[in-house]
């Protein structure tokens, strides 16, 4: 068990920057999630930690050791690949045993450890099968078992659930959570699914275009997004972002006027609030007033969309809310639920 430190780690292919100055310390026993849109450099970061990708710049420490020049096998890690990377010619049993075999773990321990790992992921019935004879979820569990069969310093998981159906994803997710609770191994987990990030992570790293946008607990990231990218990426639906100007504590934009904001800020800003924090004002007189653009039933609630501040703004309303598209709508957006971001840099403005 160990902490991991990335010091200004960068990866470039020619002129293309895949990861730019990644700087982070990951605590022992932490479950860290790398989150970001496709192509933002999550896999690359993880592969650099695993030693599968050469590092262009910077240093990586696992425990006290500088591992930059260490081969993957000497880094004492275990990795679950997005496409599982199972050995097609070996049975499930042999697949799980493989790390023990090549690391010269005493032979008499093998069987017991394989069986324990297989049991943890409920695979004991399939040990004699070849990977080709398993379902996607079962293969996924073989990959997990192969990672946990020995006690590595670090677990690396690259979108391990992306190939599973929705139901299996939920159950395997809780299996992973439980495993981490039992084994207490430092884990780095890559995903672009924010629900996974929220449910699993001790801390989340949000990345975009190779640059770290914010590091924090899931709650911090949800409640206090560091910039408009994070605000627009986290949450379902994402935070509403409205362009306008602020002066004397009053924000004004197309169809919007919000009073009671801090008077210290002035000039053009981006204002953000979450759909579930706002509410409909059937009697009128809300901060946003605009004709309804669309009305969607979500199940537990409905979502009203209106045009405001040059964007489509969503407001959550009770599911029995009924109105015609095009009819007038008014929503309460009190200053308390608003976030302010610099209009140019997109950075959060502390209030």
């Amino acid at each position, binding site marked *: 068990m160990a902490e991991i430190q990335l010091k200004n780690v960068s990866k470039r292919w020619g002129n293309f920057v895949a990861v730019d100055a990644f700087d982070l310390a990951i605590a022992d026993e932490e479950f860290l999630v790398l989150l970001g849109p496709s192509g933002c450099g999550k896999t690359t970061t993880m592969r650099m930690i*695993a*030693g*599968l990708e050469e590092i262009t710049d910077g240093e990586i420490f696992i425990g006290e050791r500088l591992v930059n020049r260490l*081969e*993957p*096998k000497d880094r004492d*890690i*275990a*990795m679950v*690949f*997005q*496409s*599982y*990377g*199972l*050995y*097609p*010619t070996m049975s499930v049993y042999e697949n799980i045993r*493989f*790390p023990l075999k*090549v*690391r010269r773990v005493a032979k008499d321990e093998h069987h017991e450890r394989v069986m324990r790992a297989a049991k943890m992921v409920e695979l004991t019935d399939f040990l004699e099968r070849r990977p080709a004879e398993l379902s996607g979820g079962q293969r996924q569990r073989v*990959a997990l078992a*192969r990672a946990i069969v020995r006690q590595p310093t670090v677990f*690396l998981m690259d979108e391990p659930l992306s190939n599973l159906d929705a139901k299996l994803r939920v159950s395997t997710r809780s299996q992973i959570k439980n495993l981490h609770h039992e084994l207490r191994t430092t884990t780095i987990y890559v995903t672009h699914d924010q629900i996974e990030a929220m449910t699993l992570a001790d801390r989340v790293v949000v990345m975009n275009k190779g640059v770290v946008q914010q590091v924090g607990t899931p709650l911090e990231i949800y409640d206090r997004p560091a910039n408009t990218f994070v605000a627009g990426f986290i949450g379902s639906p994402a935070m509403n972002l409205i362009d306008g100007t602020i002066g004397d504590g009053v924000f004004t934009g197309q169809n919007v006027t919000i009073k009671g904001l801090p008077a210290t800020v002035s000039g053009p800003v981006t204002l953000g609030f979450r759909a579930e924090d706002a509410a409909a004002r059937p009697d009128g007189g809300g901060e946003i007033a605009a004709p309804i653009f669309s009305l969607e039933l979500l199940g537990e609630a409905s979502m009203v969309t209106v045009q405001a501040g040059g964007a489509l703004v969503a407001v959550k309303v009770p599911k029995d809310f009924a109105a015609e598209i095009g009819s007038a709508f008014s929503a309460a957006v009190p200053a308390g639920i608003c976030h302010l971001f610099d209009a140019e840099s997109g950075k959060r403005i502390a209030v």
Partner: protein
Amino acid sequence: MTAKTRRRPPVLAVLSTAFIVLWLVLAAFPFLWTLWGSFKVQGDFFSRQDWVNALTGVHTIAETGGPFTGRGYYGAWVTKEFWRAAINTGIVTVSVVLISLTFGTLGGYALSRSPHRYAFWILIAALIFRAMPHITLVSGYLLPFFQLNVWGYLTTAIVVLVAINQPFTLWMLHSFFKSIPKDLDESAMVDGCSRFQAFRMVIIPVMWPGVVTTGLFSFLLAYNDFAVTATLLTQDNQTMVPKIASFLGTTQVQGNVMYAVSAVVSATVPLFLLVLFFQRQIVSGLTAGAVKG
């Protein structure tokens, strides 16, 4: 293709079937004819009067008392010591195949896994090397080999054939390795293998079909070679193909061309069996080579 897209007008079907039959006759008849003729005497196989003689074997019956004779084979294998050449061919082809595959799998694997630009250039260099006429290379070897006193030995021919075969082997295995997901060796390395262990324990077991196919083509190159073996080997070390060529100079005069015919048939049998057993691999191999150019 589905039944619908393949339904054809009858005229076309007849034409195309006739075409195939014609082609098959062209492709296979020479072999059948020579096989049959190798059991006759020269007077029948090379019949002045009538080619039907070769079927009936008039002269064969007159000369040997039976419609078929093994004289040609006896002459080639025993009198002319063709067995020596056969053993040499065996040694050369087996060694070439084994060494080519060993070198080729290592190199092809590295080429398929390297993200660097030089891997591309090595492949291009291999393509250019593939185009070198073998005899021009041989003309480069001869003088140095005489000087170094390595001319004439089987080992020399083996090494040269391995080298000449390498560009092709590299290309073919490279495209086979490309089709194996990188995840496989990467997870092996994370599991504790060095690059070489990952290659040996995880990749090679998956690669057998590709290795077998490439091996077949290496075999063909070594077995069918004439340029190298005819010029780099002494009389004693000659392999089958140059030996047959050397029959021609001497036997035609003595009227023993049937020795050469029998030797030709003998040397073709292994190839025949090869196609019989490995047809599928040959077809798939040519395709794999083509996929990646």
